[in-house]
């Protein structure tokens, strides 16, 4: 046991001290924080310049019907100003000018917007929206409906605002946010996916390094191959957890710092950003004031402690089940170029589970969702995607049990290949060969 801890220590320290680890640990959070903060910051950089637009209306139907906004001002000019504007636009004070030539109800395309610079989409949209609103009101009026104003007034009050409420087992009501839960679980699932890949590959490379540098024979004359493999797998798992922890802590720290510097803008934008990343848009009241109490209530509604514990369990389980397989692959090859053929069957289930996880958001109780959250190779990612949807406890328990069993199985399976593989040099290995190693029952 103490030998495993020696190996574990070496694996851990030699990686944590590496420059690349330190750089990644610092860059990661900056990147994450950047992903959350920059869109908000960019939005705050929006055009603040006041623009003046000229309108030449041949019909005289639309005078003053386009509203000025904070940044867009409209000046209505007489018809004869048009030729002047066209010939001498660069010297005028206008950003653009609008020409309306005919009744837009009859001829919707009788309107043009001229400018030297490309018109921004905001300007175009504003003009179109103002006119559309005016025109539809005109159209309504043309039906001569009695009490129209009152009706319109009532219409504007119509609003749908769905709150999703979860019923607790004891009948208590909690406000929930399915979207937020999905975002969080997706982030968790994705983190698991990413770490399995990064650190699984590290296990593979570590095994290969020991094999190609020929130190492995010295070491396994002191410890059992299984101890060496487990020491490496667990040591690297601790590196992964260290990095994860540092990332979370540093990201939080940076966000906190940025928030302190820019106050209220940031959290709103960052929240929206997370949701966009998850492919789901959530309407958050963009009045500028952001109700943290409400958010906290939402977070609480899907039991953060339970979710965090499950995440840690599936994260570790997912890593372990694959790390052993990566170790077996590393033991079978002499250089990274040969790794492709054996990597494929290992990586397919990981990639597949990410696709299934995305599908699971639409229908978390489907058969596919159930089975893939039970199969140990896919459950770490798929089950994390299902967790927010209040799936039955027995399913989680069964899935956890199967994951542990699966981990024990892959480790046993991998150890048999590993034991023979690390001492095989210069042999072109294929699946038949691996099977022989596995079958080979020597002690």
């Amino acid at each position, binding site marked *: 046991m103490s030998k495993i801890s020696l*190996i574990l220590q070496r694996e851990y320290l030699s990686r944590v001290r590496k420059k690349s680890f330190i750089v990644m640990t610092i860059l990661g959070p900056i990147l994450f924080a950047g992903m959350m903060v920059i869109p908000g910051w960019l939005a705050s950089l929006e055009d603040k310049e006041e623009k003046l637009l000229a309108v030449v209306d041949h019909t005289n139907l639309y005078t003053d019907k386009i509203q000025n906004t904070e940044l867009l001002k409209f000046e209505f000019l007489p018809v004869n100003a048009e030729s002047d504007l066209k010939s001498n636009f660069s010297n005028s004070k206008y950003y653009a000018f609008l020409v309306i030539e005919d009744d837009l109800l009859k001829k919707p395309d009788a309107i043009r917007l001229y400018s030297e610079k490309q018109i921004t989409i905001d300007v175009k949209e504003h003009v179109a929206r103002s006119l559309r609103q005016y025109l539809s009101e005109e159209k309504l009026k043309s039906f001569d409906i009695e009490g129209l104003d009152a009706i319109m007034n009532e219409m504007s009050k119509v609003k749908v605002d769905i709150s999703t409420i979860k019923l607790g087992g004891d009948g208590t009501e909690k406000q929930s946010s399915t979207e937020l839960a999905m975002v969080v679980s997706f982030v968790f699932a994705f983190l698991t996916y990413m770490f399995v890949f990064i650190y699984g590959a590290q296990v593979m490379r570590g095994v290969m390094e020991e094999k190609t540098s020929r130190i492995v024979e010295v070491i396994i004359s002191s410890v059992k191959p299984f101890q060496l493999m487990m020491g490496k797998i667990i040591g690297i798992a601790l590196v992964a957890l260290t990095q994860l922890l540092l990332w979370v802590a540093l990201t939080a720290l940076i966000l906190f710092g940025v928030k302190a510097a820019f106050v209220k803008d940031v959290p709103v934008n960052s929240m929206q950003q997370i949701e966009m990343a998850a492919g789901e848009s959530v309407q958050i009241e963009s009045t500028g004031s952001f109700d943290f109490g409400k958010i906290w209530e939402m977070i609480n509604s899907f039991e953060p402690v339970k979710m965090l514990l499950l995440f840690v369990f599936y994260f570790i389980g997912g890593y372990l089940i694959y790390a052993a397989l990566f170790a077996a692959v590393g033991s079978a090859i002499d250089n990274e170029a040969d790794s492709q053929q054996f990597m494929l069957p290992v990586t397919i289930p990981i990639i597949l589970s990410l696709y299934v996880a995305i599908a699971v958001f639409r229908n978390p109780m489907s058969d596919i969702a159930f089975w893939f959250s039970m199969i140990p190779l896919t459950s770490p990612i798929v089950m994390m995607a299902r967790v927010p949807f209040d799936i039955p406890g027995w399913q989680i328990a069964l899935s956890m049990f199967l994951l542990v069993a699966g981990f024990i199985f892959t480790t046993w399976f991998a150890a048999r290949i590993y034991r023979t593989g690390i001492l095989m040099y210069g042999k072109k290995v294929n699946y038949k060969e691996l099977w022989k190693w596995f079958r080979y029952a020597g002690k």
Partner: protein
Amino acid sequence: MSFLEARSVVKKYASQLALDHVNVSVPANSIYGLLGPNGAGKTTLIRIINQITGPDEGQILFDGKPLKSSDVERIGYLPEERGLYKKMKVGEQALYLAQLKGLSRNEALKKLKFWFEKFEIQAWWDKKVEELSKGMQQKVQFIVTILHKPSLLIFDEPFSGFDPINANLLKEEILNLKKEGATIIFSTHNMGSVEELCDNITLINNGKSILEGAVNDVRQRYRQNLVRLDFAGDANHLKAVMSEHHEVVEISPLNGYQTALIKMSQGSGVNQLLALAIKHCEVHGCQEILPSMNDIFIQVVNQNK
């Protein structure tokens, strides 16, 4: 008393019989040569002794008792395929490997200091292994192998990669270890060093032990009654006289003398041969030629093809 004994050890790999009922008995406090062509099964036997792999049949006795896993701490193994972690510092790595052999950190540190001073390589302590030459790395590996004062040492081609000066240093250390009571198994293709160092040998070919015994006995067993005679005088005359009783293999001039290689007939001794020679020439030297281990190796392996 034998310190290590392999009894009828069998090891099969898929289709191939790597070891076929091999018996080896290594006397305590001796240097034992494990010889054989490439792929004969030496490394397999060594791996079985190191418990890297297990025998399919048979038994290994270590210090009189069946080998058990804690025995690895009493064995030092320098494999033929050896290496170190390239990115790790020399001292740190030596400490790590020593601790894996069961030494405490402090003990390992103390002993490493002693050996690094003895080999005058203290300056390497904080260097990364990849900065060292191959020979330097071998030195570090040697130190790590013997650091925990194992009672059984296994060296697989220990001299490969060493220059003559360092090879000599190593040879002295190996002899020192024997003097201090260690039992040493020594696997090599360098027959010169076998004659120089080994007390006993086993020659393994195709998984079978085909020759074993004390080095001197083996050489005696394969002696061909060859005698080298250095003389001054008429070569043709001597050849004629000698050919009556013995077989003259060749006569060639050497440093102003003549030297004759004579294969004596069965039953005759060196004295008889000398008595005859003295009558016909001036004898400057006479020596019985024992076959070299190299010749025996080639002869025996070819016979067993």
